[in-house]
């Protein structure tokens, strides 16, 4: 009894203190007690491989920022981090250990679709919360949707629709694709072609290259000789970067042809340099320089992210954790910890509002809806500040940007 009173007192004291100090104090009571009052967030992403820049430590910094801003009073919020090495088995093992033994309540980020889907199953099994920001697969809100999962930032449908459809509206009505020869590339090409045709554009042809090629000049020349107005790059990572670099070398865009990159983050633009990347067209749902709110977000995290400005994946980590913590505050820590399903249901019931994505909502299939932007990369002359890279070409409103609810085949959707 005294033990209980003491810990109660401490919790009250903690609530009255500054959050940081409170965090230290409320961690003092016995282990079982502390756990019931502690929310543990696990950031699971690529800390050492090809997605280190697009997710990695910057995602962690953004999650910590959300915790700083929204930790419920009297509650300790801990953030733990692990590297899934882009291997589904490693990802699933870490997730299982976190949820079974380490008392983790929420798993955040998880780029790389195959790892994302593996973790999806584990989180559902353990009835915890899964806030995915980094993966592209629409399966998370389609055939494999779960009541424990929210897919926050982007997916292949939204990329294809924005880059394919909006680009045609902006004048790019004939396309040629350079496609990575595996499932991801094929489906991105297929989806984008559909939107191009829907919007009244034409697809003149495509060429498929093996994954991890070094030289793309041959494909670029083939694309150029098709006289398409837009060359769509349905590949990712270093394949894309090599493509763009060599397109600049061959002067492909000099005669007005646009290069549309179907999956690119602002960090890739940084890696290419504006001289090479200028004129590229790509889609993201967040950019730090969109409005006062996004700029204010950047100024808050800037100290923690160093020279890797947040992209949409990072922003999604921040915003999803912020919204989760709001829901926890609303329903109480105990209830939120007891059932991940209930916590996610509460998140879906509450409208979302944050500095990165503005006001929005989460659909019953777990899809977070937000406006989607088609950007063009600025020329070196237009860029006035560090990371001043994008200008907005088109905005797709939140309710049109994502796959319609009925088409995904998610079992949570009542028809």
């Amino acid at each position, binding site marked *: 009894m005294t033990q209980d009173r003491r810990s109660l007192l401490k919790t009250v004291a903690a609530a009255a203190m500054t959050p940081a100090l409170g965090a230290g104090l409320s961690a003092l009571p016995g282990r079982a007690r502390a756990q019931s009052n502690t929310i543990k967030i696990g950031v699971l992403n690529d800390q*050492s491989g090809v997605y280190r820049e697009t997710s990695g430590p910057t995602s962690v910094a953004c999650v910590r920022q959300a915790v700083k801003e929204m930790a419920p009073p009297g509650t300790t919020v801990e953030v733990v981090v692990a590297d899934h090495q882009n291997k589904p088995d490693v990802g699933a093992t870490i997730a299982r250990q976190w949820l079974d033994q380490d008392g983790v309540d929420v798993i955040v980020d998880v780029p790389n679709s195959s790892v994302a889907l593996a973790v999806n199953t584990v989180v559902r099994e353990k009835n915890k919360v899964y806030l995915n920001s980094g993966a592209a697969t629409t399966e998370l809100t389609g055939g494999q949707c779960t009541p424990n999962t929210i897919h926050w930032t982007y997916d292949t449908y939204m990329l294809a629709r924005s880059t394919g459809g909006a680009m045609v509206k902006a004048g790019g009505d004939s396309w040629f694709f350079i496609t990575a*020869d595996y499932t991801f590339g094929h489906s991105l090409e297929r989806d984008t072609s559909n939107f191009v045709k829907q919007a009244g554009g034409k697809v003149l042809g495509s060429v498929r*290259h093996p994954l991890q090629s070094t030289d793309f000049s041959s494909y670029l*020349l083939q694309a150029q000789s098709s006289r398409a107005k837009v060359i769509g790059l349905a590949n990712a990572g*270093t394949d894309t970067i090599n493509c763009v670099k*060599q397109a600049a*070398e061959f002067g492909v865009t000099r005669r007005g042809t646009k290069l549309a990159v179907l999956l690119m983050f602002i960090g890739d633009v940084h890696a290419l*340099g504006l001289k090479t990347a200028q004129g590229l067209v790509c889609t993201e749902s967040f950019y730090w320089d969109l409005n006062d709110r996004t700029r204010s977000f950047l100024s808050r995290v800037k100290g923690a992210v160093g020279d890797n400005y947040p992209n949409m994946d990072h922003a999604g980590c921040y915003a999803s954790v912020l919204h989760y913590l709001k829901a926890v505050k609303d329903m109480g820590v105990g209830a939120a910890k007891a059932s991940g399903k209930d916590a996610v249901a509460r998140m879906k019931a509450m409208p979302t509002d944050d500095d990165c994505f503005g006001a929005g909502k989460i659909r019953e299939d777990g899809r977070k809806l937000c406006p989607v932007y088609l950007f063009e990369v600025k020329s070196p002359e237009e860029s006035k500040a560090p990371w001043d890279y994008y200008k907005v070409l088109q905005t797709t409103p939140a309710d049109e940007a994502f796959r319609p609810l009925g088409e995904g085949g998610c079992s949570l959707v009542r028809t």
Partner: protein
Amino acid sequence: MLEDLLFQLQIGLPQVALGLVNGAFYALLSLGLAVIFGMLNVINFAHGAQFMMGAFVAWMMLSWLGIGYWPALILAPLIVGAFGVLLEKTMISRLYKLDHLYGLLLTFGLALIIEGVFRNQFGSSGMPYAPPAALGGPPVDLGFMFMPVYRLWVVVAALVMSLVTWLVIEKTRLGAYLRAATENAALVQAFGVNVPRMITLTYGAGVALAAFAGVLAAPIYSVNPQMGSNLIIVVFAVVVIGGMGSILGSVLTGFGLGLVEGLTKVFYPEASSTVIFVIMAIVLLARPAGLFGRA
């Protein structure tokens, strides 16, 4: 019929030209491998990582010290070559008495470590590196295609470098010592030649060749930690097809396979990364010592 042929030619010629550029990289890299294997009997799996280091050293010089492309083309190979000498002295030299496999495993491990360190330090999305002003102009019209000036330079530089290496090994006294030392090290040593030092320097030179190719590659390929591992497997195939340790063989095969690959990219692009290995399998069946190797 003739029209059809002309049309094929029109598509084919630019690809032949582009294939030559890729061939230049294959040739330079396999040249370094051939030199090292020929003289040291070590299969240098760290070659890709050393190629990557060349590109990164050039990038570091430019962005940290303001040293441009031309000095980097000389300095980066020297620096990476010196690193190679260090590796040979401290580790690789201990394995000469053992089976090839040990050298392969050691250098493979080294490659993984070097790549890991660079990835940790510089991330994996790569660094921008612009071609030098003199070669960065608009593409030149070759009649059948527009070719960036820089790519033409790559072919020239690779040819010159291959020729120089071949001359040094086949036509100079130093080369004669080297070849003699491969045949019978003890005897050459008995004549008063410092064989261990010569072998160390040979390894350094092979590594420097890889770094030279790395600097050449920096303006056209993405400068990232895994850039070498993407290329090195193909280069090994080139060396095997050309005949392990044959200098002339690796240069000719390098350019030749670049061409074949270039043409595949037009007629059946999906197979472009496989075609070299198909050729390798055929060559191994028909001539196990390689096209230019001595059995």
